[in-house]
């Protein structure tokens, strides 16, 4: 494995290897000394052409805990805002000796382009490309589900996950559908028809239009953010109607199975897709997701960068 571009490229065994590695690394994160010398002398560039809090900081924390040098690069305040192309940016980073580039870009396929080109020789890690994929998020979600519900199993067989909300614009949903089904989980998408992508019938999932039909049957409720910035047209009549039919509120929280958990990739629109008391309830593992994000990203960096690239 040299790049991490999409979950589609990953085999179930590779995904489990990443999760197992993260499990071992989490013991380090829990210990008194959080820093490991493993990636000393490696340079990792965070190339973020789109806004992000969690993912960028999470990758930065992961790289620093493995002693790599991190250079942060965001489109705002760089030559990208002067119109520099991805190619010139990549070649500049290569000339500066970057061993890996973590890229977030608003264009689907940007990470793939970077990896396929001869612009740079380092590893490419996709941290979200347009509405295509966000593999590290799916891996940390799978890790969080496995820790909470798999009872020591290595995959997610028998676990039923509902992914609720804006499936159409969500790269998190795409990566999660691919990964969770690859690991044996059953996935149900819950959304108004306007927020489902065309061709969803061919995905390995079932679809429900009524949230209340599935709320008491699933082990995991994964809420997605309503992505107002990607919405150029109206997909639902108004925000109140959306929260009434597809939001997670106190009544739906009560209807859930006793062992079921609530997830959200963040950032949350409190009051829109999830009420504040659901987000802060004892079922919510939303902050665990953030913590696990760092360990899973450490595992990704370790597996991509620690070994020799020649072999």
């Amino acid at each position, binding site marked *: 494995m040299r790049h991490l571009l999409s979950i589609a490229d990953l085999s179930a065994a590779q995904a489990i290897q990443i999760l*197992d590695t993260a499990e*071992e690394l989490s*013991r380090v994160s829990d*210990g008194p000394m959080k820093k*490991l*010398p493993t990636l000393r002398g490696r340079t990792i560039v965070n190339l973020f052409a789109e806004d992000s809090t969690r993912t960028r900081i999470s990758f930065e924390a992961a790289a620093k805990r493995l002693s790599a040098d991190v250079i942060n690069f965001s489109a705002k305040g760089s030559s990208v805002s002067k119109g520099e192309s991805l190619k010139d940016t990549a070649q500049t980073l290569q000339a500066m000796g970057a061993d890996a580039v973590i890229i977030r870009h608003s264009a689907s396929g940007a990470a793939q382009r970077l990896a396929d080109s001869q612009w740079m020789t380092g590893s490419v890690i996709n941290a979200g490309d347009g509405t295509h994929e966000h593999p590290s998020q799916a891996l940390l979600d799978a890790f969080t589900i496995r820790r909470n519900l798999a009872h020591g199993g290595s995959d997610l067989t028998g676990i039923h996950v509902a992914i609720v909300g804006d499936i159409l614009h969500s790269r998190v949903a795409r990566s999660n559908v691919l990964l969770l089904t690859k690991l044996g989980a059953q996935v149900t998408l819950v959304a108004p028809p306007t927020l489902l992508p065309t061709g969803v019938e061919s995905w390995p999932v079932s679809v429900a239009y009524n949230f209340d039909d599935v709320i008491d049957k699933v082990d995991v409720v994964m809420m997605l953010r309503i992505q107002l910035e990607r919405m150029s047209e109206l997909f639902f009549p108004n925000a109140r109607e959306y929260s009434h039919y597809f939001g997670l509120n106190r009544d739906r929280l009560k209807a859930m199975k006793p062992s079921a958990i609530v997830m959200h990739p963040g950032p949350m629109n409190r009051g829109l897709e999830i009420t504040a008391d659901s987000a802060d309830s004892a079922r919510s593992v939303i902050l665990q997701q953030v913590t696990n994000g760092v360990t899973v990203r450490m595992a990704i960096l*370790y*597996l991509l960068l620690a*070994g020799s690239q020649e072999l």
Partner: protein
Amino acid sequence: MERAITRISHEILERNSGSDSITLLGIPTRGAHLAARIASKIEAIEGRSPQCGTLDITLHRDDLRMRPPRALMPTTIPSLGVENRNVILVDDVLFSGRTIRAALDALGEIGRPASVQLAVLVDRGHRQLPIRADYVGKNLPTSLTQIIKVHFTELDGVDEVTLEEGLA
């Protein structure tokens, strides 16, 4: 092999005046099994089981860049930790000494032991670092091309140490 483990166990107890102050840490995979063997032997002698855990050193290796990525193994530190304990690192074969150097680094991240000792089943020579073992099952002079394999019943169905001629 059984006799060597018995002797090492007695030597450990003699040097540390009993099992109260010691913490055995095996280096996975086979060092961890050897540590468990020594621990049960000490329990048979003393009537109490000593502190015993495992220490994975993969992330501290200095040859990471020369090989494909390795799977990480569990690190389990026993309840009393390593602070002010007499830690005994346990590995199956002592060769270049680089594994032990990495183990010392890994140990330093966890705490500050009162002392660190080293127990190995086989010392095959060819050290590349100034490291020696305190307890040795057998000194086995080898050439660099030979390959030593240690097998344990728990893992391989048989207790044995084999010496093979490698390709020169």
